[in-house]
């Protein structure tokens, strides 16, 4: 029974995530950018913009300039999360890809550093006056959700082991639209439920910062306003009468 419920929930969550995100991205892409507004100094070439964006996405360059605490904790959290996600690929691939095997040992400890980063960020949200002031209940809940996911995952890894072999079979089955049995383990259920909630809220929440950063005109525009005329379709129409 649980296996079927989880299967339905998972299909639903994945669908919502994919459709929701694609829809968002479509909206962003469709919305015009009438003016040149890169935050200068800005690169003057496309290559330069790609580099700027990479520094932003990979190293959190602006955050680094702003505040070393937030930068360090975010980098710790996001870096660890990336490793953890990559490590989780082993539950969806058979045979497991070579590089996923390679990062396995790091991936395990990344779970711990991820939790550390999250707790640090939450600590700031609670104890730094300015950040407490700007936080909404959803900001706290989002962190709690991630902390819950990390903690339940770590518990399964280091304390109460779950039958990962069956879990893996179940997910590979799901990917082939074949519903097998999911081990009845409360920790596992919690872990999966929380992950699904995250997938569902993704396209409706501030998690949109992930696709959003690529569409941010202050970061993705070239500084070439004098060299090339830039004009939006709705603005061009105003010129018809001139």
């Amino acid at each position, binding site marked *: 029974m649980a296996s079927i419920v989880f299967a339905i929930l998972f299909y639903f969550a994945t669908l919502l995530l994919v459709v929701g995100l694609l829809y968002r991205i479509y909206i962003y892409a469709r919305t015009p*950018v009438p003016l040149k507004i890169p935050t200068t100094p800005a690169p003057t070439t496309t290559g330069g913009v790609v580099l700027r964006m990479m520094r932003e996405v990979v190293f959190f360059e602006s955050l680094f300039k702003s505040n070393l605490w937030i930068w360090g904790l975010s980098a710790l959290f996001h870096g660890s999360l990336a490793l953890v996600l990559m490590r989780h690929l082993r539950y969806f691939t058979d045979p497991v890809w070579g590089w996923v095997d390679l990062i396995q040992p790091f991936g395990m400890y990344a779970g711990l550093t991820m939790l550390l980063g999250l707790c640090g960020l939450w600590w700031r949200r609670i104890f730094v006056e300015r950040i407490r002031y700007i936080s909404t209940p959803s900001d706290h809940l989002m962190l709690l959700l991630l902390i819950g996911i990390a903690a339940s995952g770590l518990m399964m890894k280091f304390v109460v082991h779950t039958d990962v072999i069956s879990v893996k079979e179940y997910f590979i089955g799901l990917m082939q639209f074949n519903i097998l049995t999911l081990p009845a383990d409360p920790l596992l259920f919690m872990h999966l439920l929380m992950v699904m909630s995250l997938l569902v809220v993704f396209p409706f929440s501030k998690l949109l910062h992930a696709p959003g*950063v690529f569409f941010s005109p202050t970061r993705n525009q070239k500084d070439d306003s004098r060299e090339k005329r830039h004009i939006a379709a709705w603005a061009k129409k105003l010129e018809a009468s001139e």
Partner: protein
Amino acid sequence: MSDITAPAYRAIPIIPALKPGAMEGKGPFIATDKMNEALGFPGHLVDDWHDRAIAKMGELLSKYRSFKVFMDACVHCGACSDKCHYFIGTQDPKNMPVARQDLLRSVYRRYFTLPGKLFPKLVGARDLTREILDEWYNYFYQCSECRRCSLFCPYGIDTAEITMAAREILDSVGYGQKYTNEILGKVHRIGNNLGLPGPALIDTLEGLEEDVKDATGFDVRFPIDVKGAEVLLITPSADFFAEPHIDSLIGYAKVFHASGTSWTLSSMASEAGNFGMFIGNYEQLRKIALRIRVAALELGVKRIVVGECGHAWRVAYSFWNTLSGVGSGANENDHFAMMLQKQLDHRYKQPAHICEFTWDLIERNALTFDKSANDKYIITFHDSCNVARGASMGDLPGGQFEIPRNIIKAVANNYVEMPLNTIREQTFCCGGGGGVLPDDLLEIRVKGALPRMEVLQQVADEHGVNFMATICAICKAQFTKILPIYGFDRKVVGGVHQLVSNAIQLGQK
């Protein structure tokens, strides 16, 4: 308002504690019916302001990707929270950039997102009420659109864009600011922000020619409406009469004279400033920019050069090509832009900043200076926010920092930098930009100047700095007023071309 005093300098520049409600209030003077209507806005607050405001917000969300993405992407990380000079100076938490954005974002969430519709409390979504509208009016006129926050945000969220959207919404329901809307009316009616009519302008220029003749013995001209001139100079109208602005105007004229450049001003387009940007209104921005296009076409000039003005340079550098075709690289069959671009000389940057123009001459060794003429000064340079973060100069990114400094070093001997985290792209706004310059906002102006005044005091104490050069009409006006409140002489602020003017040797080459 004379009881406004300067806040105390911070012993070490620590992040200030919050003082909720410190800058609550009614905001700046509101525009009269006539001022609003002249710009096509409702004269005063309309009865259905709620629905119209939400509709306007929806319209802007569909027209500006920046606004849409910025509304969604903020994660409340707080990286921007201590970066605003108005927050530092007032300690009002609503002057933290993210909190300022949230004044609008909370309403966006309520009306345009699913979680905000379903669980408003959870995501900090709010119904738009009259109190919130008033709060917008108060706090969105405590932002100078300086973009300092955007520099530090991991997603490049620019509160200036949000402020522009908020003001646009306010104007659309008849809740306009007197200062900006009155000036916008003047620029349309008379041709410049000061409302200086053509004949008065010509008089002023003739007086200037006599003054310069008396001072130097040379016939330096201040031509206006000269057809067939090579260069059209577009400069902030404050340059025509305000102190210390006028000294820079004299500097430009001397540079043109010494290099034998034929140039002209335009009585129709006697203003570089474009307050359309302040209120985020594209139609206003465009209409004002078009005056320059018309003047350039009528006068048949080959080059367009812009005088010392911060936000004007942002509009000229970043927006003119879009708005009016003043620039290069338009598409062959873009008739509107080509009409003008065919006429301009594309061996030069179009438009060019007066500092680019002067520096180019200095590099080519076409000007002679007596640097000792500036020896009474120990000089520092205040980067103006909109030049620093909204525009550039020269060919390389960062030219907007190097070129003015290079000029100063070419015309003067004593130059000192202020601390690195307060200059170049990290510069602090003067405190009076983006529509925050009227005297009814004096309190926020004084407090917003705190971060700049602190470091000016520091270099004054350590190095004896007694002159802060800048290339912005608003910076000059703001500091002239604010410096005495912080115990400096008002003459400590001046233009880069004021220094050029002091040192340039006429009749040498």
